[in-house]
């Protein structure tokens, strides 16, 4: 896959962009390039950070930007010959939808019953496109179109850890207490981010995820 744009975000960080849209095929390529780069670290390489449709390479002053561009372009060309990507296992995330504080208001807004929203949210397999915003926050897509809603006009000041949320064509999980503008439809008892655990993130970019409804008493047991 060809880069559509290569640019610096820092003297020591170059971004390789493959599109300006959200696409599963492009994200698969980005994650594959990240994995390949991590397996073939070059002199001066620090780390690689994927997003929806781009990969950013951080490096130190022992290597020049032009050398990094050369290396990653070579990696990218080598990758193009590898077309098969195994489908990852699907991770199941239990969600207590009773704890979704915004469910009543968005049911009104979407003109759907709460049960229908839960059904729709659980009926799809989602891809983790990237981790960002706060440590461990997974950006997952694509949400069924019946559930698409703009973000809240005024972000909530404190969202509980484990809150499962939707916004636009995305769904996500708030790993830690933080402010946020997405609509909260449930809560998972799973620790999405735990600094003391290895790996600290329950999910990583490229994972496949399904949600499974649980009752409040099951949530309390699993918590």
């Amino acid at each position, binding site marked *: 896959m060809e880069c559509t*744009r290569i*640019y*610096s*975000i*820092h*003297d*020591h*960080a170059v*971004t390789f*962009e493959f599109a*300006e*849209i*959200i696409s599963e095929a492009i994200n698969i390529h980005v994650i594959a390039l*990240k994995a390949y780069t991590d397996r073939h670290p070059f002199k001066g390489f*620090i*780390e*690689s*950070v*994927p*997003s*929806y*449709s*781009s990969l*950013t390479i*951080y490096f130190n*002053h022992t290597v020049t*930007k032009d050398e990094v561009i050369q290396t990653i372009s070579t990696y990218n060309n080598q990758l193009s010959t590898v077309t098969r990507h195994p489908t990852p296992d699907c991770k199941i995330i239990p969600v207590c939808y009773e704890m979704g504080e915004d469910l009543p208001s968005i049911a009104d807004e979407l003109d759907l019953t709460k049960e229908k929203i839960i059904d729709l949210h659980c009926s799809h397999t989602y891809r983790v496109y*990237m*981790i*960002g*915003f*706060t*440590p*461990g*926050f997974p*950006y997952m897509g694509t949400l069924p179109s019946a559930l698409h809603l703009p973000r809240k006009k005024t972000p909530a000041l404190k969202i509980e850890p484990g809150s499962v949320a939707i916004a636009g064509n995305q769904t996500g999980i708030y790993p830690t207490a933080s402010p946020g503008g997405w609509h909260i439809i449930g809560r998972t008892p799973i620790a999405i*981010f735990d600094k003391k655990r290895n*790996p*600290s*993130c329950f999910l*990583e*970019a490229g994972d496949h995820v399904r949600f499974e409804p649980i009752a409040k008493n099951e949530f309390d047991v699993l918590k």
Partner: protein
Amino acid sequence: MSITIVKPGISTTVQDFGRWGNQSMGQSIGGVMDEVSASIANIICKNDLHAPVIEMTLHGTELLVNEDAFIAFSGFGAEAMADETILPFYKLLFIPAGTVIRMKPKNKGCRSYLAMAGGMQFGEMGSTLQSGDRVKSEHRQYAFKGIERTKQIGISQWKIHFNEQDLLEHSIDAIRGPEWDWLDASAQDEIFTKPFIVSTQSNRMGYRLNEKVRGLKEKKELISTAVTRGVVQLTHEGNPVILMADAQTTGGYPRILRIAPAHIAKLAQCKPGDSIRFNQITEDLSILQSKAQRSLLNKIKSSIDLI
């Protein structure tokens, strides 16, 4: 050696020089805001250049030295006092056990650093220090030439000399960002001519600027992509935000500028209310500036190694 935090003041943290390798999990790099000042404090204590230090924002911090310690202060956020004695910055200090150090207003810069000979140990780097927290150094056998280890405060005869003004003036070099072209010509012109005030909504994550920049030609949404320290994002309201040490790893606002890495230390010393100006430079010049900054630190280090 160890130091206990009596009062944390506005914000006191224990910082290394950043933790890399976890940005793909959304974990920011963190680390000291002003790497130049923090490195100089370490050089004075003959520590590794990037050993952990205490970072203090403005004044109000109070520290108790529990055991005899060799320490050094750097930066411009406050003045250090032990009772009536001024503890000079940029000198090696011997502080006897039981001394209480108070950081008093100075009104020069924003951040001060305290390094302790032997480095520092504290649970998690980047933590905000609270009253009662204790920061330790493993090494006890420190002796420095020309400074007595007595029951009195000792102050080295020598002092690190460098041009303070280099870190205190507010002309900030910047390079065009990835979405520079999204701005119309007048906005592009405005950015490098008008002064911007650092807002009170500024912290270790980012500095918000009070003045708005209007003239975004492109109305499209940027899908979330990588950001890092020094990236200047233009928010929906039109206020630029300069990402600093605790920057998030991804963002969705247009990145109109990126600050020359060698000028981040100057920004770290800017307080809310300070007026800054952006000066356009090329990436090549920026890389040379970073190289010059590394050489300056090495030069200072060599001069101390001779003592």
